[in-house]
C-alpha cells in the first residue's frame, strides 16, 4: 500500500502524541483548544489523525480518529489495518457519540442509603473501592470477588487478570451476550479445537451461509464484508456465488443469489442433506476414503427427500445447492448467529463443518488459531455466577462495561441476584441497567480516550491511543486497575504507574520478541502511526476430523418437536445498529433505518403477510407476544422477510437506564427466552422458542423512512443476468446523448463524479452514519421521522423485487446526483442553488430563503429542508465538523460530495504544486464503504478510476431516471442476477 497524504498526517499526529501525551493530566479543559500539550503542536484549521482500535464490538477494527483543535470529530477505518482495510461500519462511525454522549457518567458516584446517587471525589471513590476490597481480603473472602468484563484482549486482558489475582480471586468472566458457544463447541466436537474459526471470504468463490449474518454483526462484519466484496465483485466476467439458508431474509440473506427459506431449526438438516448428496455424487475433495465412509454413515438418513420434508425446500434445490458448492474450486460454508445458537446449535454447525470438511475448505477458507473470542465465558458460567450470587457466595462484584441485567433474560433475574452481593462496583463509561444496581461507579474513559492494545486474532496487534483529552472527569480503566492493584496486591505485581507505561512495556516485549532490529522508540512511533503491528506468520492449525464425531452429534437434528409450545417460531436477531443493545444510546444509530424494515427509533415484530392476514394484523398494529417467560406488547411490521409461521424481533432496544436516547425505545425481546442455559451448548438458547402472538385493539406509530417497499417497475434498481454480461457485444453502441435545451456545461478543471455498484452494495448503511458524522447532519427523532423529515443526505433505498416469486431485496444508495442539467437549480429564485464550475449542484445556505421549490423539483428527492432549528446537545456538539456549516432553520441542504474534502484536496495539491491525484479526494460515504461499492473521482480525467469504471462496465452502467435527461454525475452499475435452483 502506497503512503498517502492522510496516512502521512497520521504519522505526524502519532509522533506528536507519543512525545507529549504522557504529560497529560486529567484536568477539565478550560480553553477553546482543550489540550494540555504545547500549543505550537496544534495548527488551528489543520486535522490530525490518530490511529487506534474500535471497541464498539469484539471485532477490533483499526480506526483513525480525526482531531481538529483538540477535539475528535470523525472516526474512519484505518486503511493500514488488516482487519478492516480502511472501512468501518455504522457502529464504528458512531463511536464518537459514545465519547461525547451527554448521558455518560461524568464523575464518580456512590449510592447512598436512600438508594440515590451522590457525586463524590475521585479520592473518596478510590478510597472506598480499595477499602471495601481490602476488608473482604482481610476477611479471607478475596477469592469470592468476581470480575465481570466484556470481551477484552491484549493489555487490558492481561491487566484484568493480574488485578483479580492481586485481589486473591480467580474469577474473571469475559462476558458477551453473543459468545458463540455453539460455534466453539461445534469446532471442538468436529475438529477437537475449542475456537472461533477465521473465515476467508475473499479466497472463496462459492459461499453458503447458514443464518450467519456475516455482513451485519456476526464476529467481524467489516472484515467479512471486505472479503465478501472481493469474492463477489464482478471482475473480468467472474463473480462469486453466494447462497443463504435460513428462515429470515436478513440483510445478509438478501445479498444472496438464492435464499433457501428453510423452516427454523432445520439449517443443519439442509447441510447434512448437502453432505449426503456430495458424497453420493463422489464430489468430495481431499477426504480420505475412510473419512468419507464414516461421514456417509452419519448422514445416511438425510436423503434429499427427507431433508426436503423437514426444511420445506424442494429436494432438487438441495441437490443443486450441494452440487454448486461441491464444484467450486474453493468454497466456504459459515453457520452461526442467534438463529443457529439454539439447543441444536452444535449439531447444526457441526453439520456445516462437515460440509466444509468434505469440500476441502478446512485450512483454506476456514482456519484456526488463537483468538480472544475463544476465551469468552459461555452463558452457563454467567448463570452459575447468578446462582452463586443468589447463594450469597459472592463477596464483591466488579464490573466493567457489561450489561447482563439488560442482555440476559428476565427469567435469570440477574438484578435480584445482584441485590445479594454486598459490594458492587461498576467501572464503566455509561450508566446502564446493570450499573444502576451498583454501590459505586468509577467512570472510565471511553476507548477513544484510552491507551491500550488489542489482539483479537493472534499476530494482529492493534494499538489504542487517546485521540483527545477526556471529555468528563473520568479515568482510564487501566490506570484505575494499576492504582488500586498496587494497594490490593503485592507491589511487585504492578511495576507500572499508568496504563501508558504498561502498554509501552508490553510493546517493548513485542519489540524484543520480533528481533528488535531498530531502536524501540522508532518502532513505537511507527506502530502508533500505523495503528499497531501485524505479524506475517501466524500459528494456524490444520485440524482433522475428531474421533468424537458420530451420528449422535446430529441427534438434535432428528426432528423431535420440543416441548416449548406456541404457534410461532421466534427469531431474534441483533440489530445492525445496536448490536446487543450497546449502540442504542447513540442517536445516529437510533435514526439509522434498519436495512430491511426501514424503521427507526423502535423495535418491532416481523410477521409474514399470510399470518398477518389470518390474524387481521396490519403494520403499526400493536400485538401482544408471549412466551412462557415473558409477555409484552410491540408494534407489528408485516413483511415477507420472515417465513410463514415465524416471527422476528430485533435485539438492542428496550433500555430503561441507558441514557435519554435509549430509554423507553422499543422492547427488549431477550426476556422472552428461557433463562436456563442449554445443556448441549452451554449457551443461551437464542433460537427454538415458540411464542403466541395476539392482536391488540389499538395501534402505535412505527416510524419508517420508506414510502414504498417496491419500485413499481420504475427501473430505479436495474439488474442484468450474469450470463448476459459474459456474452460479447458492443455495449456502447446504443448509448447516445439525449438532446438538451440548455447549453452544454463547461468544466475548465474538474467534473466530479461517482459510480455506485448496486451489485456490491450490501445495504449495511455505514455510509449513512459516516455522512451524518462528516456533514453535521442533525437528528430529528422518531416523531419527526414519522412526519417525513429525516435529514439524511444519503440513504439506502431498499426495494423488494416485485417480479420475483421468492422475496428478495436490493439496495440503492441515493444521494444528490449532482446533475448537469439540474432541475433544482433553475427554479431557485435567488440563486441559492447554483452550478459550480466543477459540476456540483451547489447550495448556498446563507442565500437560501426557503421556498422549497428545489426540493419539489428534484426527481431524486435528496434535498433536505431544515424544518426546525437543529438541536445540538452538549457535548455532542463538540463532534461538529468545523469545516462544514451548521445550517439554520428554514434553509435547504443537501449532499455536497463532501465539498470540504474536495477543497482540502485541491489546496494540498496546490501547495505541493501538482495536480490532484486520483483517489486523493474521497467523500465520507465512499471512504467507509465496506463493500467498496462507491467510487469517486474526476470525470474529466479519462484515467481516473471512476472514468475507467464507467468505460469498463459498458453493460452495467445506467443512471437513475435517465429519461428525465438531468444528466447525473452519479452512475450506477446494475445488480447482477443469477438464477439458481
Amino acid at each position: 500500500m502506497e503512503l498517502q497524504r492522510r496516512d502521512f498526517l497520521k504519522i505526524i499526529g502519532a509522533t506528536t502524541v507519543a512525545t507529549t501525551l504522557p504529560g497529560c493530566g486529567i484536568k477539565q479543559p478550560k480553553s477553546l483548544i482543550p489540550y494540555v500539550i504545547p500549543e505550537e503542536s496544534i495548527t488551528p484549521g489543520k486535522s490530525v489523525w490518530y490511529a487506534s482500535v474500535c471497541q464498539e464490538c469484539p471485532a477490533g477494527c483499526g480506526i483513525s480518529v480525526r482531531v481538529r483543535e483538540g477535539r475528535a470529530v470523525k472516526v474512519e477505518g484505518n486503511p493500514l489495518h488488516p482487519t478492516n482495510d480502511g472501512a468501518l461500519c455504522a457502529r464504528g462511525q458512531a463511536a464518537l457519540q459514545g465519547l461525547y454522549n451527554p448521558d455518560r457518567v461524568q464523575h464518580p458516584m456512590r449510592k447512598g442509603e436512600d438508594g440515590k446517587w451522590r457525586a463524590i471525589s475521585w479520592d473518596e471513590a478510590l478510597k472506598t473501592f480499595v477499602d471495601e476490597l481490602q476488608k473482604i481480603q482481610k476477611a479471607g473472602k478475596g477469592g469470592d470477588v468476581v470480575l465481570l468484563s466484556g470481551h477484552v484482549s491484549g493489555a487490558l486482558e492481561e491487566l484484568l487478570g493480574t488485578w483479580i489475582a492481586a485481589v486473591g480471586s480467580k474469577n474473571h468472566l469475559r462476558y458477551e451476550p453473543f459468545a458463540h458457544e455453539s460455534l466453539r463447541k461445534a469446532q471442538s466436537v468436529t475438529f477437537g479445537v475449542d475456537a472461533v474459526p477465521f473465515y476467508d471470504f475473499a479466497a472463496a468463490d462459492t459461499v453458503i451461509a447458514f443464518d450467519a449474518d456475516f455482513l451485519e454483526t456476526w464476529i467481524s462484519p467489516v472484515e467479512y464484508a471486505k472479503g465478501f466484496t472481493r469474492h463477489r465483485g464482478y471482475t473480468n466476467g467472474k463473480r462469486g456465488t453466494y447462497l443463504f439458508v435460513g428462515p429470515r431474509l436478513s440483510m445478509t440473506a438478501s445479498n444472496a443469489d438464492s435464499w433457501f427459506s428453510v423452516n427454523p431449526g432445520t439449517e443443519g438438516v439442509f447441510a447434512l442433506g448437502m453432505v449426503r448428496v456430495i458424497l453420493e455424487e463422489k464430489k468430495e475433495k481431499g477426504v480420505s476414503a475412510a473419512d468419507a465412509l464414516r461421514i456417509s454413515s452419519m448422514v445416511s438418513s438425510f436423503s434429499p427427500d427427507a431433508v426436503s420434508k423437514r426444511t420445506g425446500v424442494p429436494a432438487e434445490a438441495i441437490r443443486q445447492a450441494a452440487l454448486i458448492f461441491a464444484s467450486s474450486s474453493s468454497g466456504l460454508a459459515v453457520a452461526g448467529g442467534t438463529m443457529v445458537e439454539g439447543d441444536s446449535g452444535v449439531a447444526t454447525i457441526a453439520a456445516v463443518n462437515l460440509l466444509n470438511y468434505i469440500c476441502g475448505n478446512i485450512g483454506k477458507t476456514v482456519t484456526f488459531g488463537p483468538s480472544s473470542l475463544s476465551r469468552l465465558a459461555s452463558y452457563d458460567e454467567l448463570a452459575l455466577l447468578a446462582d452463586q450470587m443468589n447463594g450469597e457466595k459472592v463477596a464483591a462484584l466488579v464490573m466493567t462495561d457489561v450489561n447482563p441485567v439488560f442482555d440476559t433474560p428476565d427469567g435469570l433475574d440477574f438484578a435480584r441476584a445482584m441485590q445479594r452481593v454486598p459490594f458492587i462496583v461498576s467501572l464503566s463509561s455509561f450508566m446502564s441497567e446493570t450499573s444502576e444496581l451498583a454501590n459505586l461507579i468509577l467512570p472510565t474513559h471511553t476507548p477513544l480516550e484510552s491507551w491500550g492494545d488489542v489482539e483479537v486474532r493472534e499476530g494482529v496487534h492493534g494499538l489504542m491511543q487517546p485521540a483527545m483529552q477526556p471529555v468528563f472527569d473520568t479515568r482510564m480503566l487501566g490506570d484505575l486497575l494499576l492504582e488500586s492493584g498496587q494497594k490490593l496486591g503485592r507491589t511487585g505485581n504492578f511495576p507500572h504507574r499508568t496504563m501508558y507505561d504498561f502498554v509501552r512495556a508490553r510493546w517493548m516485549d513485542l519489540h524484543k520478541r520480533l528481533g528488535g532490529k531498530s531502536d524501540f522508540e522508532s518502532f513505537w512511533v511507527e506502530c502508533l502511526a500505523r495503528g499497531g503491528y501485524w505479524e506475517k506468520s501466524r500459528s494456524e492449525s490444520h485440524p482433522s476430523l475428531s474421533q468424537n464425531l458420530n451420528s449422535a452429534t446430529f441427534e438434535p437434528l432428528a426432528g423431535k418437536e420440543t416441548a416449548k409450545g406456541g404457534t410461532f417460531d421466534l427469531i431474534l436477531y441483533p440489530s445492525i445498529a445496536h448490536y446487543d443493545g450497546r449502540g442504542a444510546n447513540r442517536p445516529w444509530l437510533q435514526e439509522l433505518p434498519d436495512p430491511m424494515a426501514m424503521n427507526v427509533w423502535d423495535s418491532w415484530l416481523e410477521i409474514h403477510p399470510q399470518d398477518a392476514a389470518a390474524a387481521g394484523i396490519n403494520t403499526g398494529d400493536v400485538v401482544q407476544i408471549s412466551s412462557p417467560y415473558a409477555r409484552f406488547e410491540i408494534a407489528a411490521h408485516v413483511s415477507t422477510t420472515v417465513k410463514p409461521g415465524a416471527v422476528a424481533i430485533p435485539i438492542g432496544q428496550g433500555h430503561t437506564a441507558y441514557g435519554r436516547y435509549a430509554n423507553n425505545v422499543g422492547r427488549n425481546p431477550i426476556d422472552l427466552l428461557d433463562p436456563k442455559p442449554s445443556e448441549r451448548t452451554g449457551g443461551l438458547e437464542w433460537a427454538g422458542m415458540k411464542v403466541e402472538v395476539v392482536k391488540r385493539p389499538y395501534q402505535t406509530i412505527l416510524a419508517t423512512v420508506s414510502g414504498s417497499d417496491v419500485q413499481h417497475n420504475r427501473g430505479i434498481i436495474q439488474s442484468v443476468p450474469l450470463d448476459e454480461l459474459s456474452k460479447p457485444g458492443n455495449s456502447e453502441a446504443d448509448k447516445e446523448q439525449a438532446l438538451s435545451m440548455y447549453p452544454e456545461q463547461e468544466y475548465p478543471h474538474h467534473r466530479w463524479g461517482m459510480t455506485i455498484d448496486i451489485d456490491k452494495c450490501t445495504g449495511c448503511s455505514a455510509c449513512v452514519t459516516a455522512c451524518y458524522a462528516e456533514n453535521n447532519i442533525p437528528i430529528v427523532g422518531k416523531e419527526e421521522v414519522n412526519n417525513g423529515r429525516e435529514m439524511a443526505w444519503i440513504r439506502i433505498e431498499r426495494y423488494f423485487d416485485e417480479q420475483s416469486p421468492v422475496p428478495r431485496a436490493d439496495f440503492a444508495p441515493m444521494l444528490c446526483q449532482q446533475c448537469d442539467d439540474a432541475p433544482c437549480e433553475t427554479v431557485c429564485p435567488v440563486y441559492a442553488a447554483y452550478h459550480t464550475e466543477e459540476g456540483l449542484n451547489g447550495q448556498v445556505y446563507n442565500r437560501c430563503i426557503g421556498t422549497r421549490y428545489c426540493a419539489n423539483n428534484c426527481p431524486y428527492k435528496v434535498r433536505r429542508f431544515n424544518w426546525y432549528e437543529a438541536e445540538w446537545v452538549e457535548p455532542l456538539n463538540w463532534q461538529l465538523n468545523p469545516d462544514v456549516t451548521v445550517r439554520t432553520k428554514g434553509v435547504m441542504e443537501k449532499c455536497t460530495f463532501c465539498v470540504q474534502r474536495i477543497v482540502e484536496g485541491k489546496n494540498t495539491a496546490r501547495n505541493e504544486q501538482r495536480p490532484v491525484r486520483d483517489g486523493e479526494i474521497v467523500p465520507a460515504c465512499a471512504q467507509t464503504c465496506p463493500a467498496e461499492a462507491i467510487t469517486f473521482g474526476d470525470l474529466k480525467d479519462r484515467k481516473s478510476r471512476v472514468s475507467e469504471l464507467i468505460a469498463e462496465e459498458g453493460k452495467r452502467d445506467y443512471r437513475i431516471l435517465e429519461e428525465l435527461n438531468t444528466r447525473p454525475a452519479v452512475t450506477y452499475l446494475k445488480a447482477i442476477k443469477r438464477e439458481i435452483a
Partner: protein
Amino acid sequence: MTEDYSLNYTDTDIDLMQSLKAPGKGYWFLLVFLLLLIAAGAAAWGVQIAEGIGVAGKNNPVGWAMYITTFVFWVGIAHSGTLISAILFLFRVKWRAAVYRSAEAVTIFGLATAGLFPFIHLGRVWVAHWILPVPNFGGLWPNFRSPLAWDVLAITTYLTASTLFFTLGMMPDVAIVRDKTRGWRKKVYGLLAMGWQGSDNQWRHYTAAYVFLAALSTPLVISVHSIVSWDFAMSIVPGWHSTIFAPYFVAGAIHSGLAMVVLLLIPMRKAFKLEKYITGHHLESLAKFIIFTALVVGFAYSIELFVSWYSGNPFERAIFIYRMTGDYAWAFWLLITTNVLVPMLLWSRKIRTSIPWLVGICISVEIGMWLERFVIIVTSLAHDYLPYAWGIYKPTLVDSLIVIGSFAWFFFLFMVFSKTLPVVSMWEVKEQINPPTKSGR
C-alpha cells in the same frame, strides 16, 4: 334608455350612498369575529416564524401544501374583478355596471390575501426581499429562470394595474361622496376624488383613460394566472408538468372568482337594500357565466386525464391513478362533484334564480376550486418519481389557522370597503338610466 332600471339620478345617489351610513351592531359583531380569526392566524404565523416551518404539516416529498394551495386560490378569486370590469367593459356588457365595483374590490383584496402566502410559506421570511430585483451592493439579482421570480413580477403588475383601475373607476363616485360629507371625511374623499369636477373636459379624458386601462388590464387577466400555473407547469413533477396548465388555471380562476362575487353580492344587496340595482338579472347572468366556466374546467379535467393516459408516461399515469384512488381520493372526487357536477344544476332556471340555491352552488364551487389546487399540489408531490421517497401530508393546527385567518382577512377587508366606499358604481348606473329632464321626474 334601458329596461333594467326604473330609477332616477337623485334616488340613485341616495340609495347607493346609504351603504356609507354608520354600521349597525351586526356589522360590528361580524367585524370583531373576523378580527379574532385574523389574530389567531397571525399568532400562528408568529409561532411558525419562531419555531420553524415544521409546525406546518409539510415534509420531505411534500414541500408545498396548504399555503400554496390557498395562494393560488386567492389569486384565482382575484380574477373575476378584472374580467368583469375590463373585458366585459370592452364587450359593452351592460349588466356589469352594477357589480363591477364589488368585483374589483374582490380582485384587490384577493391579491392582498394571496400576496401574504408567498411570505408565509418561506422558510426564512426575514430575507424575503432577496427575491425582488433590487439593485444591491453584491450585484446579485434574482434568478429570472425561476417561475417564482416571474410570479413576483406578474402579481405586482396585476396588483398595480387593478388598483389603478379601481381608484380611477371610483373617482366620479367619490366626488359625489365628497360633496355630501363634512369634516375630515370630506378631506379624505376629496383626496381620493383627485379634484374631480365632472366637467366635460374631465369626462372626455376620463373615459379615454378608462378604455385604455381596460385594454391594458385585459391581457393581465390571462397572464397572471398563466404565470402562476407555470410555477407548476415549468417543473418536472409528474402531474404538474403539463402544457394545459395555463388555460386550465385561468378558467378555474374565473370559475372561483365569479362564484365569490355572487357570494359577496347577495348578502350585500340585502344588507344595503340594493335589490333595485343588483337585480335578479345580474345574478342570473353571473350564474350563466358559472355554467360556462364549470364546463371549461370540467373539460380541462377530462383532457388532463386523457393526456396522462394517452401519453403512456408511467409517472403521469401513476399520479392520476393515485389521485383517483390514493390517500387523497376523497378530495379528488369531491372536487369533481363540487366544481363540475353541482354547477350543472344552474341549467335549471328555477335553481339559478333561487337565491339559496345560488349561494349553495357558489359555496360548492369555492370548496371545489380550493380542493382542486390542493389535489394538484399535494398528490403530485406526495407520489413523484422515487417510490421510496413517497410521503403524505397532513394539515396541522398552525397551517389550518393561517388558512382560516386568510379567509377572515379577505372578508374583513371587504367589509371595511363596503362601509367606506360606494359599492355600486353610481356613474355607470346613471349612464344606463334616463337622464333627468324637465318633463320627467
